[in-house]
């Protein structure tokens, strides 16, 4: 089935990004200054991990409310291990990633083996993980972050490309390869599309659900660790405001919430759109409180368009059939 270029998930968001950059760049040239681009890319790098973490769960037709709580827990574990135990940062980062993986696995096992909706399970674990975070830190940040980590979180390796863009690009490519080329990825989408049919065609639905949640936990932890470098602090509040963004970017990128259909490129562009809109509010001195409103409107707009495309595709299919 050949597709025309504008029928791709990423085409609409790409158009928005290009037009937005052109308009904002023309109105305010400082938007395209290397420094501003660096700031923009830093925000995109971290937010893309958050969005991918939710996207993989949307792919199986579920939701993960605990993305932020896992990210926050990994972040303070990363900061705490370095400050309190003096563990070198690569090992601390590895252990924090492992923690995220375990937290995601726990979600997956609970959802897969109880059959209770992922919404309730992850609402419960959200609260449990956040409570552990607050219990350990007593709401105080870890301040002593090694200089290397701070540098990696803020500096560039090739002006204006920040170090943080590297893990982001690597993860994006790996996810694209997983979802489009590997049997595992196709199984993930199959489970999201029709769980019963997937089961009948020999896919272990439980295994897939657990794998997807584990990947989600891992990516959330990665986002948390990157944010520690970026903020130069092991903040207990990391992750508190991820929920809206984590859903906004995938749906802007054309993901269908009932599962089976996500786009890595679309999600990435969704993150870029959110980052550009947020920057515009800052550049033009518009009230930063409006960021929340913009995010909410973006979600409604995106799900509206996705719904419209879905209905049109159905009608088209019916016409072909008759």
């Amino acid at each position, binding site marked *: 089935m050949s597709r025309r270029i504008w029928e791709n998930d990423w085409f609409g968001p790409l158009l928005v990004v290009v037009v937005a950059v052109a308009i904002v760049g023309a109105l305010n040239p400082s938007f395209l200054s290397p420094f501003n681009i660096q700031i923009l890319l830093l925000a995109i790098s971290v937010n893309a991990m958050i969005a991918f973490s939710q996207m993989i769960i949307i792919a199986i037709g579920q939701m993960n409310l605990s993305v932020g709580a896992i990210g926050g827990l990994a972040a303070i574990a990363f900061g705490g291990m370095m400050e309190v135990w003096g563990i070198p940062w690569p090992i601390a980062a590895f252990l924090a990633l492992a923690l995220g993986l375990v937290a995601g696995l726990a979600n997956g096992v609970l959802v897969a083996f109880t059959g209770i909706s992922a919404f309730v399970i992850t609402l419960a674990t959200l609260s*449990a993980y956040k409570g552990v975070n607050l219990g350990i830190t007593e709401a105080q940040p870890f301040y002593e972050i090694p200089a290397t980590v701070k540098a990696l979180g803020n500096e560039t390796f090739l002006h204006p490309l920040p170090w943080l863009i590297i893990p982001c690009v690597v993860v994006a490519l790996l996810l694209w390869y997983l979802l489009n080329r590997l049997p595992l990825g196709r199984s993930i989408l199959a489970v999201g599309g029709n769980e019963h049919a997937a089961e009948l065609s020999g896919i272990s639905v439980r295994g897939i659900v657990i794998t997807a949640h584990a990947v989600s936990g891992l990516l959330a932890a990665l986002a948390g660790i990157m944010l520690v470098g970026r903020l130069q602090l092991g903040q207990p509040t990391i992750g508190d405001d991820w929920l809206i963004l984590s*859903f906004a970017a995938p749906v802007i990128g054309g993901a269908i919430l009932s599962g089976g259909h996500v786009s890595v490129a679309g999600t990435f562009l969704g993150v870029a759109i959110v980052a550009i809109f947020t920057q515009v509010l800052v550049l033009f001195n518009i009230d930063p409180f409006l960021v929340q409103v913009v*995010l*909410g409107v973006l979600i409604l707009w995106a799900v509206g368009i996705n719904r419209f495309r879905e209905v049109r595709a159905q009608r088209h299919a019916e016409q072909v059939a008759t």
Partner: protein
Amino acid sequence: MTDIRQERSGAIGHVEQRQSSRLTLLRLLLSNEFGLLVLIVLFALIFSTVSPAFLSKFSLYALGRTAAVNIMIGFSMMVVILTGGLNLSVGAIGVSAAMFGGLLMEAFGLPWPLAIAGGLAMGAALGALNGVIIVRSGLHSFIITLATMSIFFGVMIFLTRAESYRDISPVFTGFGRMKLFAIVSPLLIVSVLVAVLLSVLFRYTALGREMLATGANERAAELSGIRVNRMITYCHMLSGILAGVAGVMLVSRTGAAIPSMAGQLGQDWLLPAFLGPVLGGTLLTGGRVSVLGTFLGSFLVTMLTTGLLLMQVGAFWVQTYLGLLLLLAVLLDLFRRSYLTRRKLI
């Protein structure tokens, strides 16, 4: 001959009757509401043994006052869950309604009953807006209320400049601080009244039955002439009003309308909102509610929070226990249900 037969059938009837009354008893003992009552009594005993301060007059009064708000938050989510949907924006609506009430009192100098009515009307309007968008778009309430949660809260913060309204009528704040018989808060009485009204709605009125039918099976409800879309919109509107009541109660208790009283985006209300109905046996797939169960569930959660704080487990860990409690509750419910099904009791 006939006598014997009659006697025998009488005996059989007697046995059957005894069996069925045993089954009724078993069903009652395995019901959510009874389980919750047992847990409430059990934990009350534990907490009062460990810390005698738990039964002090002030502690009981504070418990009732906090429970009153949590019960309203639980009801606010319950009336949406019964349609098979959910409402993530309860916190955002509750705070918006409370802030609007505060605005009417402080900036427009309206007498407090009018201002409160205005706040509740705001809650109803925002809830109805949710309902209309959901029905018109045909999308799941999760993503719609996620978006409106962000929009409502963002607009509220933008308009209020994140500042509180402190000029609240003393009569109204007096209501939130009043003590009846030294231990009962009037707020708790309001919650009981609302619970009674909701019970009547779902048990005895056509409107309530139609709402439940919509949640149980939308297609069947539609075929039997129920205006399904209207019912879903009504449920969301009711949810908005109840969230507004919870917000207004908080204003009455703290003496100010504070934008951060439900946390960032009103997210702090989400856990209590789901804990009450889920513990109380409301089906997440819709079609069944237990008003008493939600009432008791929310009360139990408040009691556990208060008790854990008194036992000095550390305020920061309480959230973890509440999360684990929700997990435990849904798992227990799963086992209870499968047991009842196996014994053919439901």
